[in-house]
């Protein structure tokens, strides 16, 4: 599957538009080093919702066993991990 990093990043942050707005951020201005958990954008349940939404959108099952836990909720590392996962899906 061909997906660009930028496209994936936008998809991820658009999904979170509402909780981002609640803490005064928006999808366009959220920095790569934003920790979604520390910033109060998502909790563990929100993380599951996010994963489900992205799986729906890209039609694949995502695996997080290889992603270090401290990177799980940080925009940049999370997006890059998702990209490798989605690109690994045969088209």
């Amino acid at each position, binding site marked *: 599957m061909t997906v660009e990093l930028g496209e994936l990043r936008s998809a991820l942050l658009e999904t979170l538009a509402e909780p981002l707005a609640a803490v005064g951020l928006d999808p366009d201005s959220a920095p790569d080093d934003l920790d979604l958990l520390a910033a109060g954008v998502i909790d563990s*349940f929100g993380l599951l919702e996010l994963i489900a939404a992205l799986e729906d959108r890209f039609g694949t099952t995502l695996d997080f066993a290889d992603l270090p836990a401290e990177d*799980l909720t940080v925009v940049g590392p999370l997006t890059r991990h998702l990209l490798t996962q989605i690109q690994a899906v045969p088209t």
Partner: protein
Amino acid sequence: MSHPSLQSGFLRSAAEYPDRPCLRWSGGELTYAEMAGRVGGIAAAVGDSPRVAILADRTPTAYAGVLGTLMAGAAYVPLNLAFPAARNRAILERSGAMTVIADQAGIAALPEVLSGLSSPPTIVADGVDVAPAGLDPTHRAAITAPETLAYLMFTSGSTGVPKGVAVSHGNVRAFVDRMMQRYGLTPGDRMSQMFDMTFDLSVFDQFMAWEAGALLVCPSRPDLVNPAGFIQRNELTTWFSVPSAAMFMRRLGSLTPDAFPSLRWSLFCGEPLPAEVAREWAAAAPGSTVENLYGPTELTVACAVHRWDPDGSPRQSTHGIVPIGEPFAGLEAIVVDPSLAEVPPGAPGELLVAGDQVTLGYWNDRERTDAAFVTPPGRTETFYRTGDLVTRADPGSPLCYLGRIDHQIKILGHRVELLEVEAALRSASGRDSVAAVGWPRTESGAAGVVAFVAGGGEDLTRMRAKLASRLPPYMVPRRIHILPELPLNANGKVDRGALEALLASGDAP
């Protein structure tokens, strides 16, 4: 027969193991002696208040607050920093607590919680690090009578107002004694503290640790998205959580074989446990015994248990859900029809439980207490009506959970009365025709609440803000759908099934 108080376990451990670690939290570690110092200070500050609210989250103040309150002969009433101020205020008012113990974060949140209260409570701001010398609270410990109130635990109420379950020292003593006998915890144990203090499963974590002289380990915020790392780094020996936490770990790929070699006990409670989750957890923690506990707050934390057995349990599971097992020795469970007559084996019915863990009832609510705490025809004991539908396939089989007889659902183990969400929806929308359903469905219940409002042109942002200012986060509808009118069933009631079908179809506007 003696009735040692609830706090006697802590006092004994503090005397026997003063230098052993008692609490590990994000800010450090306290020994039993240090904790005893904090407890003594708080007990003195609490004085003669009969009921004491606690607004603190996983800090020494929270736990010293619980113990100090009991030591002073009072009952504790947990508040929650994650709750909106209005809900904490409602709990404070209903409980009549005239003292509030708060930590740093609690102090910051208090002005909003207390705003508009006619008689503001006394605040115990706990921040002292030096233990007062000469703590000798044993005389207090000895005089606590078993019927003395130990805590008020507020749960979702179907009328739109949270209701307080009144639990006595004798209730919790009976529970803790049974659990100590079953789990044999020791000072070497390191126990998880996953439950918020407003969730009564936290009573197990705290009082079992203190009874055993064990270490209670609190997760930090980052630990909540990495519970597997939390178990490993702290080499926990006892894990206790809702099944949703295990399902979360499974989703992240953390439940690999032998991932948790340190665990001796893996305990789950609060919502249905899927057999598949139990099986994977057992493989991830092969040195541990996996148990499924069951029980409502009204029966003091838990009242029944099933030990997971990889051979027998899957066969005994109903719809892939692990049995809730057998009532604890000393408690009696019966399965009844609507007239409270026992049903024959194999038939479904409501679960009723009697014994020394049956709590005192609902705080200042005689009507509701009488409706739920009943004496069935031909019996003399008081049974609590759980509202849970269960069945026992035959006399030798364990009890299996089938569902609810009312509109209560579980979200991440929290009890949610859909009628309470609907009451909040009516007030937030100004519309009469509203509905709340548990959605999306998960293996163990529902992941959240979705709302429907019959109307048009509503300001959804405003409505959401109103709901969030009144309900705990897990009860706030994650989506609000506006329909011209709500589907009704043959009885003229809102047809929740049709609404769920609409959600499943993806066509909900």
